């Protein structure tokens, strides 16, 4: 399984904090997972996940979308951070 988490604007747009996705051979990279979520979720999901500046985290580290997924990974999607 993969755990997928959403924060801030994206969480709001999707009305979803977290979901579990079965890990299979076609979900090789973060990018594959993102495309699959958009295809399954429809227009609203596509728009939220493909807005400019989305940040992708894999196991709580920011990564590029070509990072390869392993079973058990935690992937998160969120807008640019505004700490401090």
């Amino acid at each position, binding site marked *: 399984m993969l755990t997928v*988490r959403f*924060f*801030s*604007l994206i*969480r709001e747009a999707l009305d979803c904090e977290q979901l579990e996705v079965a890990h299979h051979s076609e979900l090789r990279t973060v990018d594959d997972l993102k495309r699959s979520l958009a295809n399954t979720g429809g227009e609203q999901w596509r728009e939220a996940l493909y807005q400019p*500046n989305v940040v992708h*985290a894999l196991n*709580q*580290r*920011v990564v590029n979308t070509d990072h390869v997924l392993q079973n058990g990974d935690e992937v*998160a999607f*969120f*807008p*640019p*951070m*505004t*700490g*401090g």
Partner: protein
Amino acid sequence: MSVLIQGAPFIVEQQQAILLAETSGAGLVTFTGYLRDFSEQGAVEALELEHYPGMTERVLEELGDTSANRFGLRGWRIVHRYGRIAAQDPIVWVGVLADHRNEAFAGCQFIMDTLKTKAPFWKREFMSDGRVVWVQSKAEDTEREKSWQECAYE
């Protein structure tokens, strides 16, 4: 050498005392960020800070360690709130101890500049006129953070 992320308000003096109990140095630089009662959007009543539990702690611990190595700090402490925060309340406190004042200034400023764009927090402002607005990241903050990568302020 430690990170505290909490929903409840914190008291700056107590946090400073914790750092000073852990270690000592010739120079202590602290930064306290308070919630402004105004923003680009107008008068602000409160802020809600969302964060990514686990990742926040990890990012800030790495950030403190990086600053300590880069600037030769003797000690550091980062405190950050999440949840709903009232105007004028402290949001973030960073304290660093070093043998020389310039290392302490640089170490503290490096942590603050990096934290702004690298720690997984997201701010939502509750405006006095009733609007609720997600705070946009600032190009200026991204530039500041990058400047630490490019120029060697050491």
